[in-house]
């Protein structure tokens, strides 16, 4: 197959379309999905009808639980949230209802709903209430959590999320939405819980999440003359590919995690903690994250200052190698 450029956003859109084609139970709920304002759902209402691609009133809590009810009755809804913080607004419906049905009913049912946030994290200039990246919170609560870092993965992981029998949250970071992959093979599902070594190396493993995978690859390139950096993209934060990470650390013995979410109790903490308990390092590990409890300030320079970037990562890698 010749290489075809595939954009991340288009990959998500194709995954939705393909799954709706394949499985009549798949349906789509969200605000402005008909016109596809975010780009995620463009063309789908025309293709599948307004009673399958449903424009929702501003009632996120109700339509999130509506998805639960529909899922309990045989549907397989995908819910789009326009802003990451809508996950705060609907946390009761996701974490305390959808997530708990399977265990609490003793396995009588499951809730196959996928929640997608196209454009999570900071979109420059959208300020404090639109710029959060709470994927670690979902890993903590035990909801399957996916953060694709490339177009091909975005396709494959969204497909798997939709087919999964449990609730899955898919974060599509704003920082990677505009990127393109060169697609060289047919698009395929990517299993949840399986990470991917994006670049092999022997001196240090950089665990990078979402849009920071490209940043990590950049840093690996920058430092190539000095050190051999392995870039590990877990792709799914819960369940996490511990075996994949272990294999990488057995090669490198050093660890840096770069994670665009708040430091305390984030996914970076989990990686360091599990490694401290179960694996062996040659040097103390490091996290590169947002600060504790960060609120993103509006002004562009401040917004950027709060987010981890390639330079921060480079400094951390150097420190770990020292």
């Amino acid at each position, binding site marked *: 197959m010749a290489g075809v450029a595939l954009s991340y956003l288009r990959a998500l859109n194709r995954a939705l379309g393909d799954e709706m084609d394949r499985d009549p139970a798949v349906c789509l709920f969200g605000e402005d999905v008909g016109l596809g304002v975010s780009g995620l759902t463009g063309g789908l209402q025309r293709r599948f009808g307004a009673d399958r691609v449903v424009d929702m009133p501003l009632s996120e*809590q109700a339509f999130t639980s509506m998805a639960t009810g529909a899922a309990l009755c045989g549907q397989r809804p995908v819910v789009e949230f326009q802003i990451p913080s809508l996950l705060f607004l609907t946390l009761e419906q996701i974490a305390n209802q959808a997530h708990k049905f*399977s265990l609490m009913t003793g396995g009588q049912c499951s809730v196959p709903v996928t929640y997608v946030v196209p454009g999570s994290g900071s979109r420059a200039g959208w300020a404090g209430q639109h710029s959060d990246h709470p994927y670690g919170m979902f890993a903590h609560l035990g909801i399957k959590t996916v953060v694709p870092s490339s177009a091909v993965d975005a396709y494959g992981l969204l497909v798997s999320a939709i087919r999964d029998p449990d609730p899955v949250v898919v974060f599509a970071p704003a920082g990677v939405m505009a990127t393109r992959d060169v697609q060289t093979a047919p698009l395929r599902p990517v299993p949840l819980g399986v990470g991917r070594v994006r670049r092999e190396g022997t001196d240090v493993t950089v665990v990078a999440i979402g849009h920071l995978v490209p940043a990590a690859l950049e840093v690996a390139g920058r430092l190539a003359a000095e050190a051999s950096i392995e870039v590990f993209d877990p792709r799914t934060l819960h369940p996490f590919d511990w075996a994949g990470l272990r294999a990488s650390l057995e090669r490198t013995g050093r660890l840096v995690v770069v994670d665009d979410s708040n430091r305390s109790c984030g996914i970076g903490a989990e990686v360091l903690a599990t490694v401290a308990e179960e694996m062996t390092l040659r040097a103390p590990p490091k996290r590169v994250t947002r600060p504790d409890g960060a609120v993103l300030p509006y002004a562009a320079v401040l917004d950027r200052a709060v987010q981890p970037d390639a330079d921060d990562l480079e400094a951390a890698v150097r420190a770990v190698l020292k």
Partner: protein
Amino acid sequence: MTRAASLYRTMRLVRRFEERAIDLVTAGEIVGGIHPYIGQEAVAAGVCAALRRTDVITSTHRGHGHVLAKGADPGRMMAELAGRTTGLNRGRGGSMHAADLSLGILGANGIVGAGGAIAVGAAWAARRSGSDRVAVSFFGDGALNQGVLLEAFNLARLWSLPVVFVCENNGYATTLPVDASTAGAVLGRAAGFALPAVRVDGMDAEAVLDAAADAVRRARSGGGPAFLECVTYRFRGHHTNEAGKAATYRTEEEIAGWRARDPLLVQGARLPADVRAGLDAEVEEAVAAAVAYALAGPVPLAADALDHLYADGLVPRGKVVA
């Protein structure tokens, strides 16, 4: 069985089931206590008599009546309260989460107001799949102030979905009188969402059934949602743990006044004495059998604590990773 007898039997079953359940709370066989439904039986009996087996309901923290009236097996229900593997939910849910998906019982719910939007989703799924299933959501007067339920009213009406909202107005949300919680009239609130709404004597199962049958018939034939206010009263405390406390929010006179209108008396008076006695005896036996079945069931094994956490069999990391 005549309709009158059948309503009486259901109410009697619910009443005696709960009385025995309270005994088991006292005896320490049911841990955590229950929210007794006693006094409100006419609502569950009347509404569920208007439903088919394939119709679905969502219930509340005070859910035993709904679950039993919708047809759940009393033995498996009691076993659930006693935390046995023979329970409806294999002992994983307990009083506040009892469910039987095979009977359309999408579950009691520990969160006030949470069921409404789930029922809307079930109704939406029914419409989408071409079924004429109706969804009923039970909730209390207190739930009328819960945002997600109000959002659900709007969605149901907007799309003319087959949902019947049943408000059991028992006058109190825990200790708070409805007048101190709800501005305007209950029916007015429903009218604010353009829901056709009627008020019915919630101590009279026949009246409830008539009103419910109307609403369900309309919903089933595409006439859209409805709202029923059932005016009722709980004879006991909010929860079994209230028994010990001075419950100063209701007067003895008020309680006595409502007890004089006990729905079992109201309905019992409509039956020949021998029919009633026969039903009483039959129920007595059924409930005794339920208790025996419940207590004979095995307690779950600690090792199985996380069974069904994920529907795909994912086994999460445990408490201590060795």
